[in-house]
């Protein structure tokens, strides 16, 4: 249940933006009025447990889920997307891992998700980014709110600390969007706790088991800060793999586990309570990984209850790190023959090839424990 403001009371349109303001990304959206979804004041900040969250009932589609699906389907209907991704065939690759393959002949490999979000968030070419041209790709904002229940404002300018939801016109799956945090510190090159918490909250409130959120760490020399999300038709193989918990903070605290029996080194973070602290720990870990030049990806699944951290190898050749969904076991194929011939072995090798080695993994695990201990203290 959300409240709906019928009147446009948010009159913050700033006219005549000063050129130097454009250096900061948050100003470039000021004039764009799109729907705004405000979370309720009951926040994960309050250490409230997931269960019993006031606006979430599992048996019913959530307001945020309806909004995202409606907006996405609407853009599809209006022809904003380059193709209808539901026409691409998907299958489970034979074998016990249940890797998933999609045949997507429309998706040119040259332009595999190098989205507008890059342009929006990258500092360098911001002035070249013509938002008017891309306005139709903007779906809505989400921001924190002060009401007891979530609120949908049909048209609003961007509030501070909002996350902008942009459609990906070359979707990997249904509902593929970019989530671009546009906060005051959006120039930071590293993942920050506020942004991660906002998007995790997004996953919690959307409350749809098919929904997955992703983050790929920026490769050397580039800078971007956005998340991606879409609806996956079935669980990703990594979510079905067994885990081995090595850090456990107590009854409701954080748990860190190794995903065993999976070709790419992966950690799983879970927390029933103290969610905010887990996010802080995770952000600190990601920062340290970046310092050590260890490429990583995040996958948020199970309605925000699970966060997977994939650890890739430092690659000298600077050639392709995998995206988070590939790490999770979902692969795209451009040609029918590749799609038909895909075997579990090939996919295993693909993941093994980029995975961090045992030694490095041990170091990362120790790092996680020490950071988690530090925050627990």
């Amino acid at each position, binding site marked *: *249940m*959300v*409240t709906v403001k019928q009147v446009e009371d948010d009159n913050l349109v700033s006219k005549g933006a000063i050129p130097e303001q454009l250096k900061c990304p948050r100003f470039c959206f000021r004039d764009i009025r799109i729907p705004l979804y405000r979370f309720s004041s009951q926040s994960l900040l309050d250490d409230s*447990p997931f*269960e019993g969250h006031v606006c979430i009932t*599992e*048996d*019913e*589609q959530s307001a945020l*889920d*309806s*909004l*995202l*699906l*409606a*907006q*996405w*389907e*609407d853009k599809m*209907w209006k022809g904003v997307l380059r193709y209808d991704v*539901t026409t*691409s*065939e*998907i*299958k*489970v*690759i*034979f*074998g016990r891992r*249940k890797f998933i393959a999609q045949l997507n002949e429309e998706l040119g490999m040259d332009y595999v998700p190098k989205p507008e979000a890059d342009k929006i968030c990258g500092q360098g070419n911001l002035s070249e980014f013509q938002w008017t041209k891309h306005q139709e790709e903007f779906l809505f904002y989400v921001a924190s709110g002060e009401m007891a229940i979530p609120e*949908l404002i049909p048209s609003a300018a961007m509030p501070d600390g909002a996350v902008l939801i942009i459609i990906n016109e070359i979707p990997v799956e*249904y*509902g593929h969007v970019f989530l671009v945090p546009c906060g005051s510190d959006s120039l930071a090159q590293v993942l920050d706790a506020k942004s991660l918490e906002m998007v995790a909250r997004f996953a919690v409130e959307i409350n*749809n*088991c*098919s929904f997955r959120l992703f983050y790929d760490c920026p490769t050397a020399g580039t800078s971007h800060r956005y998340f991606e999300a879409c*609806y996956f*038709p*079935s*669980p990703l193989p990594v*979510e*079905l793999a067994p*885990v*081995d*918990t*090595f*850090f*456990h*903070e*107590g*009854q*409701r*605290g954080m748990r860190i586990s190794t995903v065993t029996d999976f070709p790419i080194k992966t950690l799983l973070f*879970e927390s*029933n*309570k103290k969610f905010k602290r887990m996010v802080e720990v995770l952000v600190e870990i990601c920062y340290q990984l970046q310092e050590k030049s260890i490429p990583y990806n995040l996958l948020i699944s*199970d309605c925000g*209850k699970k966060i997977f951290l994939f650890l890739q190898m430092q690659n000298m050749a600077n050639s392709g790190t995998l995206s988070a969904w590939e790490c999770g076991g979902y692969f795209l194929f451009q040609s029918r023959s590749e799609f038909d011939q895909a075997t579990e072995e090939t996919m295993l090798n693909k993941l093994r090839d980029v995975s961090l080695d045992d030694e490095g993994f041990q170091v990362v695990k120790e790092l996680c*424990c020490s950071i988690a*201990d530090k925050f627990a203290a």
Partner: protein
Amino acid sequence: MESQLNFNIENSFNSRYSFCARQVLDELPHSFTITDPSISGHPIVFASKGFLKVFGYSKDEVVGKNGRIFQGPKTDRKSVMEIREAIREERSMQINLLNYRKDGTPFWMLFHLSPVFSKEDGRVIHFVGVQVPISPPRRPRWSASGVVRNGANMCEEGDRVCGNIMFGSCRREVCSDTPVELSRVLALESVLDDSSRGLGIEETCEASNLEKQEAEVAINKIFSVLTCHSELTGRFVCAKRHSLPGAGILSSSLNISLGRIKQSFVLTDPHLPDMPIVYASDAFLRLTGYARDEVLGHNCRFLSGADTDFSTLYQIKESIQTEQACTVRILNYRKDKSSFWNYLHISPVRNASGKVAYFVGVQIEEGCKNQDRNGLCPEMRHRSVVGAVKVAVRSLSIGAGPSRS
């Protein structure tokens, strides 16, 4: 609406097994529930006396609810996911699961899930879930002493047992082979007495062969009651799928996903003769006044009447033929012959192979005061239903063919 739901729940059981089956099932000592995946929310339609005793609930508190109310903060999410997968694939499964009683105390049980198939068309009618509490083999474990001794400071926020009997250090290396064992260890920490830690924890909650047998025995007895009583109603059920699900039968998981969408819509199957309705939402039945049985298997044309514009019908037909989405305003009729303007959106929906599997039709009654609770305008309400249906149907038949092991 409430009473309608209650009726559906009662009817789900009675119309299949007859009322007397309740009594016979209640005489069984086992703890089990029967759930109906075709009712929105996949609710419990029957809970045995043994079940109510073990969990400490009254019948009215559980019938109509989803089984997840017995899970709690320590219930392993992965196990829950495995159950969800079994439901999706409509197969039996056994798993050790941590559940919570009404008073908040957690306990381990062996959960055995089995689908009940309709003999006639191979569709899943119900799921039977048997719960066998796992008795820890040796040494104190559900450590009465520990609980009582610490009882005073163990309760936090009312009902969940937690807290002060954590181990001295927060960090702990655990050696274990399986995730199930691991999560069990974690869950046990809270109730184990410090002194008993370290010894025998791993084995503590592995269901013994005896318990596995007990679950099998219970399942067999329940099935014999159900199959036997289904003969009374003439609507036979069986434990094994005798025929592949017939045409026009939706899988349980699709039914469950669609049940979450609270607006008025139907799914029609273009691959069947005369393109019949294969799914109708509760809101559709409320809008049109028909019962589910009266619409499933029928073409949507029963909604049209004397004053329905022929050209609009033609427009719909054309968009279906070209597999395009369309939006129209059409005069429709309820069961009681009263008419209403239907702001209708129709869209093709594709399955995992990318082919059109169904058409979804979303109905919005024009001039109806019932504003959407999520604050979306009519067009966006159409889109949101179509989007949700597309996501649900996209996974359809993904497991089919040689890809599945």
